[in-house]
């Protein structure tokens, strides 16, 4: 079997796997955000950037190849990752204490994993009203990080095309594909794949709230790194 090294450890891969896919199978954690195992890589958040033979490449889009020397856990890369996470925090309105997704949020877990303790930059504080029109689903756009997973899940898996991104640069934002712009006027339902893919707290099932208390949630019990490393073969 072919292999490459990740921070000095041998990682086996099969032809066609990306670096992060092979690392996941081997139980080796590379910090990532927009890379979802069930969707083709998007390569937009750059959090999973690693050095491949000394060159920075996103590990979700770079194919593994024989003999690559991959470095992930370096001080410089982790500093860049911290800054990326901090920029995502200040671009939206992320108030973890009041968020139902706190403790099961990829952005939050990533921040804690990387030792981020502050926002670092000045907050943009954008004004983004919520959409509570749907009887079963709440959309809180304040937390959107523009990963497009819901856009792709709704279009490619659910075939409903409920979401889209609109605007450019700082004005880019998530919208609902309906003449009214309201979720109630789409075919979105609780069974949709788009309900499950949001890495942050935008798409929420109503009346769920704080049924699992803070401190007992998914990533409170086991961090993403711990979950992945628990599956590592000795």
């Amino acid at each position: 079997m072919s292999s490459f090294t990740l921070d000095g450890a041998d990682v086996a891969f099969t032809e066609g796997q990306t670096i992060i896919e092979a690392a996941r199978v081997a139980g080796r954690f590379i910090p990532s955000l927009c890379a979802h195992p069930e969707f083709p890589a998007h390569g937009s958040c750059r959090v999973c950037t690693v050095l491949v033979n000394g060159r920075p490449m996103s590990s979700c889009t770079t194919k593994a190849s024989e003999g690559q020397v991959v470095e992930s856990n370096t001080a410089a890369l982790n500093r860049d990752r911290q800054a990326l996470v901090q920029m995502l925090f200040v671009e939206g309105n992320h108030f973890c204490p009041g968020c139902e997704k706190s403790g099961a949020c990829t952005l939050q877990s990533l921040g804690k994993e990387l030792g981020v303790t502050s926002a670092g930059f000045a907050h943009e504080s954008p004004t983004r009203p919520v959409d509570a029109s749907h009887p079963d689903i709440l959309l809180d756009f304040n937390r959107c990080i523009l990963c497009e997973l819901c856009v792709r899940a709704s279009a490619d898996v659910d075939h409903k095309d409920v979401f889209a991104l609109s605007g450019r640069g700082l004005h880019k934002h998530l919208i609902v594909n309906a003449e009214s712009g309201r979720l109630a006027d789409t075919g979105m339902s609780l069974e949709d794949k788009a309900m499950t893919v949001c890495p942050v707290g935008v798409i929420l099932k109503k009346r769920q709230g704080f049924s699992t208390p803070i401190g007992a949630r998914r990533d409170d019990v086991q961090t993403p790194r711990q979950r992945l490393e628990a599956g590592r073969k000795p």
Partner: protein
Amino acid sequence: MTAKVRVATTSLAGCFGCHMSFLDIDERILPLLERVTLDRSPLTDQKHAGPCAVGLVEGGVCNEDNLHVLREFRAQCQVLVAVGACAINGGLPAQRNHFEVGDLLRRVYTEEPGLTRRVVPDDPELPLLFDKVRPLHELVKVDYFIPGCPPPAEAFWAFLSDLLDGKEPRLPKGAIRYD
């Protein structure tokens, strides 16, 4: 015996929850007080901070008094620490940032049902509200951050222990919380 280290604490636009969590270090406060003298703090009721090694500031900045106190802390403390969600990103009080402050005052003090006196308070004793609630690092240089709502007692303990031992303070992984 080495001289005690002076530490000041205050709450700006906060709820004192961070101070309560600090007190959750329980009996460890006794060995701490052998190494630390509290300067301005809700526990001493001292009105102004003197020269200190460390200042712990809870809460964001929502009015001119908050800013005045924050600047006093920055001037007096060698190491300034933003403590808790509100000091770090504005927290709950910053939820008003998407509304115009005059509108909010009118709504709350003149339009809410059950009010006996419908007037926006304007006593000169009251500090002027700012249009936005801001976190500390957007206004002064902040040296360290202890996140959480509130930060766990363990975070206060680990941070202060490191600092008093002359080490670079480091929060243990489990002690970094955003909620």
